[in-house]
C-alpha cells in the first residue's frame, strides 16, 4: 500500500466539515421536449436506421405496457409492471450497446429486451406462464430472460444483480472479449447492501460494467427523499472512485450518448462507470399498486409533460425520418399484434408436470425423483383435482 497517505491530502489545521453536498453533478441534456437539440449539444452516434429502430422499440414498449395493464385488469394475466414515462432508459441503453454486451436488469427494463429482438410471442408466453415460456412458467410475469440475446433472466430480490454484474464483466474482461455488462437498478435498490458491494468490487477489480441507475423518484410508495439525502445517487460514484455521469433519463439522445461514452471507456480502460438517469415513474409501481395512496395527480401531470417517447417522436418528425401516417399505422399494427398474441398465448398449455423438478439441479437427485413419482401417482388418483396436468401424465 501507499504508506504516505498523509501526504496525499491537503492539510488543514481547523476542524471543519466537508459538506454532504459538496460535489455538484451536472445533468446531461441533448434533446428538448419540442424535438429540437440544445445549442452546442454533442450528438450521440445515431443514424436514421438506429433512430427508427429505437423509436419503434419505444412505441412497442408503450403499446405492450398499455395492453398488458389492461389484460391484467381483465384478469387475463396475474401481474404486470409498466415503465410508463421512463422507457428511454432501457431502450436507449440497449441502443448505445453492442449485441454481445450483457444486460442485467432489475425488472422495469423490458425495453432493452425489445430492442434486442425478443419476440412478442416470447413476451406473451412468459406472462402467461405457458409451456412455451423460455423460463418454463416459473416466475411471475415480466421476469424475462434470454441467453441468446444476452439478457440475464430477471430475479425479484432487489440489488442482487449488482455484484453479479461486477463478476460477469470481470469474466468478460478475463476472456479478452469486446464486451461489457450493463447493470440496471432503481434508486430504491441502490440502498441495498449489494449495491455497495457491487460498485466497490467493480471499482477495485476493474470490471467493465456500466451501472445504470434509473432514478424514477419512487420505490413503490417511498419517495426518493426518504430513500437518501441529497439530489440523487450519482454522488456515490465519487465514493468509489468511479467515473460518473448524470443524465436526463427522458432524453433518449442523452441516454444513448452516455451509454456510448461509458461503453467506450469501459472497454478501453477496463473500468466501471456509473450513470444516473433522472426520470419519473408515471404509472403505478405494478398492477398491485395504487399510487393515489401516496402522491398527487398534479405531480404526475407535471411529469407527463416530459414524455420521452413524444420527445423522440418530435425529433424524428423534425429530422424528416418519421411522419404522422407512419405513426398511426405503427401504433395500430402494434395494438392489433399484441391483442392477437394475447389470444394465442393464453390458450397454450401450462408447462408439463416434469418441469416441476427439472433445472433444480443439472439432474434431479433420487429423493426429488421419488417425490415426483409419488406426485404422479397422486395426480392419477385424483385427476379432477389437478385438471391441467392429470391428462398429460405418462
Amino acid at each position, binding site marked *: 500500500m501507499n504508506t504516505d497517505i498523509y501526504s496525499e491530502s491537503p492539510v488543514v489545521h481547523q476542524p471543519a466539515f466537508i459538506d454532504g453536498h459538496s460535489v455538484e453533478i451536472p445533468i446531461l441534456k441533448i434533446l428538448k421536449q419540442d424535438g429540437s437539440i440544445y445549442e452546442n449539444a454533442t450528438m450521440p452516434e445515431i443514424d436514421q436506421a438506429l433512430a427508427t429502430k429505437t423509436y419503434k422499440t419505444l412505441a412497442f414498449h408503450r403499446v405492450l405496457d398499455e395492453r398488458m395493464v389492461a389484460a391484467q385488469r381483465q384478469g387475463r394475466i*396475474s*401481474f404486470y409492471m409498466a415503465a410508463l414515462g421512463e422507457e428511454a432508459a432501457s431502450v436507449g441503453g440497449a441502443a448505445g450497446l453492442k449485441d454481445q454486451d450483457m444486460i442485467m436488469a432489475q425488472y422495469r427494463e423490458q425495453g432493452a429486451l425489445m430492442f434486442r429482438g425478443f419476440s412478442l410471442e416470447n413476451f406473451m408466453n412468459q406472462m402467461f*406462464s*405457458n409451456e412455451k415460456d423460455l423460463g*418454463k*412458467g*416459473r*416466475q*411471475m410475469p415480466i*421476469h424475462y430472460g434470454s441467453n441468446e440475446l444476452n439478457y440475464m433472466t430477471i*430475479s*425479484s*430480490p*432487489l440489488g442482487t444483480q449488482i455484484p453479479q454484474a461486477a463478476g460477469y464483466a470481470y469474466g468478460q474482461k478475463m476472456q479478452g472479449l469486446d464486451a461489457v455488462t450493463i447493470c440496471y437498478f432503481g434508486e*430504491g*435498490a441502490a*440502498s*441495498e*447492501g*449489494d449495491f455497495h458491494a457491487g460498485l466497490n468490487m467493480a471499482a477495485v477489480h476493474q470490471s467493465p460494467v456500466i451501472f445504470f441507475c434509473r432514478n424514477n423518484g419512487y*420505490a*413503490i*410508495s*417511498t419517495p426518493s427523499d*426518504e*430513500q*437518501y439525502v441529497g439530489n440523487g445517487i450519482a454522488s456515490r460514484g465519487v465514493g468509489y472512485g468511479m467515473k460518473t455521469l448524470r443524465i436526463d433519463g427522458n432524453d433518449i439522445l442523452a441516454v444513448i450518448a452516455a451509454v456510448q461514452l461509458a461503453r467506450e471507456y469501459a472497454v478501453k480502460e477496463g473500468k466501471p462507470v456509473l450513470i444516473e438517469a433522472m426520470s419519473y415513474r408515471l404509472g403505478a409501481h405494478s398492477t*398491485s*399498486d395504487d399510487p393515489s*395512496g*401516496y402522491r398527487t395527480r398534479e405531480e404526475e401531470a407535471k411529469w407527463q409533460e416530459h414524455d420521452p417517447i413524444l420527445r423522440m417522436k418530435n425529433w424524428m418528425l423534425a429530422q424528416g425520418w418519421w411522419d404522422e401516417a407512419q405513426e398511426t399505422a405503427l401504433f395500430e399494427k402494434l395494438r392489433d399484434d399484441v391483442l392477437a398474441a394475447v389470444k394465442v398465448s393464453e390458450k397454450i398449455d*401450462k*408447462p408439463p*408436470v416434469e*418441469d*416441476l*423438478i427439472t433445472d*433444480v439441479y443439472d439432474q434431479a437427485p433420487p*429423493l*426429488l425423483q421419488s*417425490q*415426483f413419482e409419488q*406426485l404422479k401417482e*397422486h*395426480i392419477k*388418483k*385424483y385427476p379432477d*383435482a*389437478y385438471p*391441467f*396436468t392429470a391428462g398429460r401424465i405418462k
Partner: protein
Amino acid sequence: MAQMNLLQAINNALDTVMAENDRAVCFGEDVGHFGGVFRATSGLQEKYGKNRCFNTPLVEQGVIGFANGLAAQGSTPIAEIQFADYIFPAFDQIVNESAKFRYRSGNEFDVGKLTIRTPYGGGIAGGLYHSQSPEAYFAHTPGLKLVVPRNPYQAKGLLLASIRDDNPVIFFEPKRLYRASVGEVPEEDYQLPLGKAEVVQQGSDITLLAWGAQMEIVEKAAELASADGISCEIIDLRTILPWDIETVANSVMKTGRFVVSQEAPLTAGFASEIAATIQQECFLHLEAPIARVCGMDTPYPLALEKEYVADHLKIYEAIKNSMTY
C-alpha cells in the same frame, strides 16, 4: 368483539402497543404514510407521527440492524420485512446478532424488545420469490422465537405476546389469509402464550400437526378422514421456536399415529425436527412411521403450484396410509 380479517387484527395489535408504549416504533419499506404494501401499518403514521412509524430505505440488513440497535437502546422496535422471501439479506443481523446479543454479552445488553413481522407463504400465484415459508432457516438458531398465527384471533393475541416478550421474535404472517381469514377478535388487549401449541380438535386415531396457513388445509383433510370414520386430533404448533414438545408428544402417545405438514420443502424443514423428536419421545407408542407432508424439494413454482403444494388430498392420503400401515 368485532369481525376482523387477519390484517385488521394485526393492525389492531400494533395500534394497541403503540398507544400504551411510546417507545414502540414501527418501520420498514413502505410502512409509513402508505401503511405497508399489504396495509398492515395503515393509519399508524397519522396517529403516532413520522418518528414512530416510518418508511426506511430499501435495505433489509439495515432495517434489522437499525432495529437491533434500537432494541439494545431500550426502545421497542417492530420491524417489517415486506416479504419473507426478502428476509435473507438480513440473515446475518438476525442469526448472528439478534439471536446472540444477550448471550455474548453475558446479559450486559440484549435485544429482547425486538419483533420482526413478515408475510410468508404461498397460494397467491407469487412464484419462487413471493411464496417462501422460511421459518426452518431460523429454527436452527437458539435465541430466537418464531411465531406463526393461523387466524385473526390468534394473530392479535400472539403478536401482542411477541412484542412484549423479552426475546427477539420473528412473527410470520400467512399472507394468503390476510384478507381471506375473517373472525371474531376482541377489541380489548389480550395475549396468547408463546411456546404453547394448541389442540384445536380432539381425536383418538391420529395426530395432525401444522402451523399458520397450513392449518386450514389440515383441517380440510381431517374432514375427509372423518367421513371415513377416522378421528383426527389436530394441533396448531403456533410457536416454532422454542416448540411445545409436550403437547405434541402427549397427543401422539394417545393416538399412536402422526402426520405433520408444512408448506416449505421437505428436506431440513421444521417438520423434520418434529418427526425426529417425536420418534424419540413416542417410540414405543408409534404404530406407523411419522409422515411428513410438505412442499417438494424445489423452489416454489408458479404455473404448477397446485401440483406442488402439500394440499388436503396429499394429507388425506398420508392419514389413510398411516391408518392402514
